């Protein structure tokens, strides 16, 4: 970066910055005099809308123009005096080059340059419009905190800090993106997170060389392990509580400015099946919900494929009455079960996508048409059989019990090849597909940690939090692959109650 040093002549700096920003209309340059006895020329730069003009007036212009008139203490230079006693603002930094000047005002700061000095100050004045902390929209809970991250990096780090008041909670910040200069904060707990993982994350972040990071999804794709897979190896969350829990297990969180989706690495398969509420409800409820969720996962993945396999290859597996009633439903249906299933699945995917993308105002119309297409009308017209509608619907609903949306998308993608396999080979195809999937999953790693742990490689102790959700007093140890530097969470003593 060619870094032009600032000029001692104020007018030259103003002209240079104007030129650098191509005379943008929102650049405000306020020239004024400090003091009245021996007035010194000064200029304040900021971008309208990024900096808070009210604060600028109150904390910069007012003290400088009014109190700057008071007699100058002997010996102190003007910049020193400004810094020490006049600017009543917390965060002040020095800027020495034109590029720094441009960057600081573009990040919402105000910059102050003085006549006759070749450096100036940047003053934190950011005050753009921002959204309040609100309820999470994707990861909702019945019981548990109802706050979610916002687009503001600082708010987000504060939300996490408020949950973990531990000096070991470390925050490393860097700017990624040559043009966007997006702030990315990496948070982990020193002493719990494994050094190798932290080092690996740092390296992968430093390796990113792109001009724009607009959402954490960009970062996710740049840092994920380079293996072709449909499974997500980076978790994202909009819930401060689940990120805090991940940090306490030894994960690393990446908070990207401008998005409420915080990344958590390394991400293991089981994390995608855990919801924060599992830990807030009593453990028996949590366990039951987990089991339901795994059943849902199975149906979402294998449902239509299983139906196709049984009805077109293995009719002998059905009870006679069921076979007859299924056969009756298929009377007059023109397509093979596979085509029928494919049609319904694709229709459903279109409806779902439309549901997300359509303007809110037309929502009702689309949902009415949608229910007709996917349901009654298609059956009555004899295009699909009612049983297939049931299978597709239960599959669709099941895919939503997977708490992480990116995992449920992966499952949806896999459904189609599995359907094609069973349509050609029956159960045999289903098993081939299932085993291939299992092998693939076992081979995956996320930041060096085996994706399927603690199931493969097997760790008996960690199974307390896979399908079961053991009571908190009995979860004494952190997951062994991640938190081995400080494995013990709590003493053996149980909490209150009768002994």
């Amino acid at each position, binding site marked *: 970066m060619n870094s032009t040093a600032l000029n001692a002549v104020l007018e030259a700096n103003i002209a240079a910055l104007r030129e650098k920003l191509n005379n943008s209309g929102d650049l405000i340059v306020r020239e004024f005099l400090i003091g009245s006895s021996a007035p010194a020329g000064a200029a304040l730069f900021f971008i309208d809308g990024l900096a808070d003009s009210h604060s600028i007036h109150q904390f910069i212009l007012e003290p400088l123009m009014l109190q700057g008139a008071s007699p100058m203490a002997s010996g102190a230079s003007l910049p020193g005096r400004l810094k020490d006693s006049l600017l009543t603002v917390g965060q002040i930094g020095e800027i020495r080059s034109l590029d720094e000047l441009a960057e600081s005002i573009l990040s919402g700061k105000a910059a102050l340059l003085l006549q006759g000095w070749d450096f100036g100050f940047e003053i934190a004045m950011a005050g753009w419009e921002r959204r309040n902390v609100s309820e999470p929209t994707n990861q909702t809970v019945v019981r548990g905190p109802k706050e979610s991250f916002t687009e503001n990096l600082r708010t987000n780090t504060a939300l996490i800090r408020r949950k973990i008041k531990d000096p070991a909670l470390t925050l490393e910040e860097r700017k990624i993106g040559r043009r966007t200069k997006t702030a990315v904060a990496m948070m982990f707990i020193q002493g719990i997170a494994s050094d190798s993982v932290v080092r690996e994350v740092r390296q992968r972040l430093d390796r990113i060389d792109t001009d724009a990071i607009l959402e954490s999804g960009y970062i996710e794709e740049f840092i994920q392990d380079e293996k*072709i897979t449909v499974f997500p190896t980076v978790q994202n969350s909009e819930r401060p509580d689940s990120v805090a829990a991940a940090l306490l297990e030894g994960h690393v969180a990446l908070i990207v400015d401008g998005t409420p989706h915080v990344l958590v690495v390394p991400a293991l398969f089981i994390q995608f099946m855990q919801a924060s509420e599992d830990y807030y409800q009593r453990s028996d409820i949590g366990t039951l919900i987990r089991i339901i969720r795994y059943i849902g996962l199975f149906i979402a993945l294998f449902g239509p494929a299983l139906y196709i396999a049984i*009805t*077109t*290859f293995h*009719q*002998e597996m059905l009870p*006679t009455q069921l*076979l*007859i*009633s*299924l*056969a*009756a*439903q*298929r*009377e*007059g*249906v023109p397509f*093979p*079960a596979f085509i029928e299933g494919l049609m319904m699945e694709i229709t459903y995917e279109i409806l779902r996508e439309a549901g997300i993308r359509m303007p809110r105002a037309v929502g009702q119309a689309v949902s009415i048409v949608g229910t007709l297409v996917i349901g009654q009308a298609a059956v009555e017209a004899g295009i699909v059989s009612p049983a297939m509608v049931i299978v597709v619907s239960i599959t669709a609903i099941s895919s939503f019990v997977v708490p992480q949306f990116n995992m449920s998308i992966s499952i949806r993608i896999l459904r189609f090849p599995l359907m*094609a396999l069973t*349509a*050609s*080979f*029956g159960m045999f195809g289903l098993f081939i597909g299932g085993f291939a999937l299992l092998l693939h999953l076992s081979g995956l790693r996320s930041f060096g940690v085996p994706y399927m742990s603690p199931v493969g490689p097997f760790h008996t102790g960690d199974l307390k939090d896979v399908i079961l959700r053991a009571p908190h007093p009995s979860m004494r140890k952190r997951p062994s692959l991640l938190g081995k530097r400080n494995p013990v969470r709590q003493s053996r003593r149980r909490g209150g109650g009768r002994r």
Partner: protein
Amino acid sequence: MRIKGFAILAAATLLLLLATGCWNRQELNELGIVVAMGIDRDGDRFRVSVQVVQPGEVAAKSGGQSLRSPVAMYEASGRTIFEALRKMTTVSPRKIYASHLRVVVIGEALARQGIGTALDFLQRDHQVRSDFYLMVAKETTASSILNVLTPMERIPANDLYASNATAEKAWAPIFGITLGKFVTDLGSDGKQPVITGIGLNGDAEEGSNTRNVERIRPAAELQFSGMAVFRKDKLVGWLNEEESKSYNFILGNVRSTLENQSCPNGGELALEIIRTKANVKGHVRRGEPQVEIRLRVEENVGEIQCRIDLNKTAVVDELERRSEDRLREAMSKTIRKMQTEYQLDIFGFGQAIHRADPAAWRRLKRDWDRNFADMQVKLDVKTVIDRVGTINQSFLSKLEE
């Protein structure tokens, strides 16, 4: 490099999908679901009749049921069963699919000539399971049994299957014989097979019409009656109701049934048998085979048509003793009949001897039919009456005071 390899693999897999031609794939509406099969003699050929479900007529649907028959029957003759079944495609639009076969009925005429050749297909074919019931059409053809529409169960084969299963649980003379069981007995040295008999009552012609099920009392009915006794694969005779019952008692097939008995002072009473346990034990004494049958029966009093005082232990004891006598008598009569009339060991006494003394069995089995006829059978029957029902004294006793 890895992406290239992956692409090649994916392309190869896709080609493979085309190559299969969807091997063995059959849509549900391309199946002719066979639920019952009948096998008869047709000269020197087999006459095979199958009952195929018409799914649209059977499945639960709103808006009433149509007037079409719930099943269709196809018949064809062939030198082999397989040939006959394949020949049916000349009349049936769908290929015969036999995995859901529930009942196979064999015509009595064929059964008397031997059914071994007919059963090979049913055992060999990969579609057919071996858990369907075998039945012999008593005094009629299998085809006419399959030709009757039944009330309650719309599919006649299901009616046969279900009533066989129900009777097996509640009526001692009936016991379902599956193909697997029949073939096991057929292949065993010390036991001759039996098969449940099925008879047709009423107007056979009217029975095949949907009018048959529109009536409150069907014109034609299918009824189980007794067991057909086989020497190897040839039918040689029938057991009547009483004998079938004894047969099932000896083999421990009885789950629950009832038994009529006369009261000590005239009149009838019925005992409900709720649990039985039979044990056949063989011995060889001085070269002579013997069996001992131990039967333990638990009963409830079910119905009384006479004046007895059930509050008295002596009366209950008396009932138990009479019941024992009756069972013992019926069983020994049946055994004697098999020993003298048929010289046919349908009870598996040979197997009991085999288990008890394999060395002696090797000698005895050479002329087992004769040895069976001469063998000594000891019966040890014990019954216990548990409960007498919800009333003690019959109101009859009050009437007569």
